[in-house]
């Protein structure tokens, strides 16, 4: 069974601070996705990374896939209250299903 460990699980920061969320596993994945979910809504895809060592940027968000394709990180620069939400990593190991981590609940205070 593939397990994804996310850390930290909770984070409360002030507007303007930087943060990094980690997603780790002992398994190798064909691809890894990051989602953001707001209360009462479904997850919204932020990015998909497929190549070991890949780095993708989406405005103030930087995503990295580990060289061995077992881990990933999400870095947010100058966080804003609108970044508040649950950040989920999800991996595919060759089958069609997504395996999700428990998520990191982020609160950005104005």
């Amino acid at each position, binding site marked *: 069974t593939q397990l*994804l460990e996310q850390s930290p699980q909770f984070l409360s920061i002030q507007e303007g601070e930087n943060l990094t969320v980690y997603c780790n596993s002992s398994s190798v994945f064909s691809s890894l996705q990051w989602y953001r979910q707001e209360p009462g809504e479904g997850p919204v895809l932020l990015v998909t990374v497929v190549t070991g060592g890949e780095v993708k940027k989406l405005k103030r968000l930087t995503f990295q896939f580990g060289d061995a394709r077992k881990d990933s990180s999400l870095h947010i620069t100058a966080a804003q209250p609108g970044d508040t939400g649950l950040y989920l990593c999800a991996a595919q190991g060759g089958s069609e*299903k*997504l395996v999700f981590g428990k998520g990191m609940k982020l609160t950005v205070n104005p």
Partner: protein
Amino acid sequence: DAGVTQSPTHLIKTRGQHVTLRCSPISGHKSVSWYQQVLGQGPQFIFQYYEKEERGRGNFPDRFSARQFPNYSSELNVNALLLGDSALYLCASSQTGTYGYTFGSGTRLTVV
């Protein structure tokens, strides 16, 4: 274009009852997947259907079943509801079923 639509949005059922949840995928998407998200956890895979055939099943009891219709919409059925079935049930669609998933807003099921 409409996104993935799920109905109903909220539902309250009594233990032992049966429930049917519905999902309409994005137009052109032939794959539908179902996930269960318990409070404080990430979504867990229940089923995937592609072209009306079951492509995958998660570690859920036989009380859970699903099907996909010719128009690619899907139903998730749960029999003999337990309190532990209370969760947000999410539907995701994709064109091929291998990547590019779009999730609906979910159905919040409460079993009392």
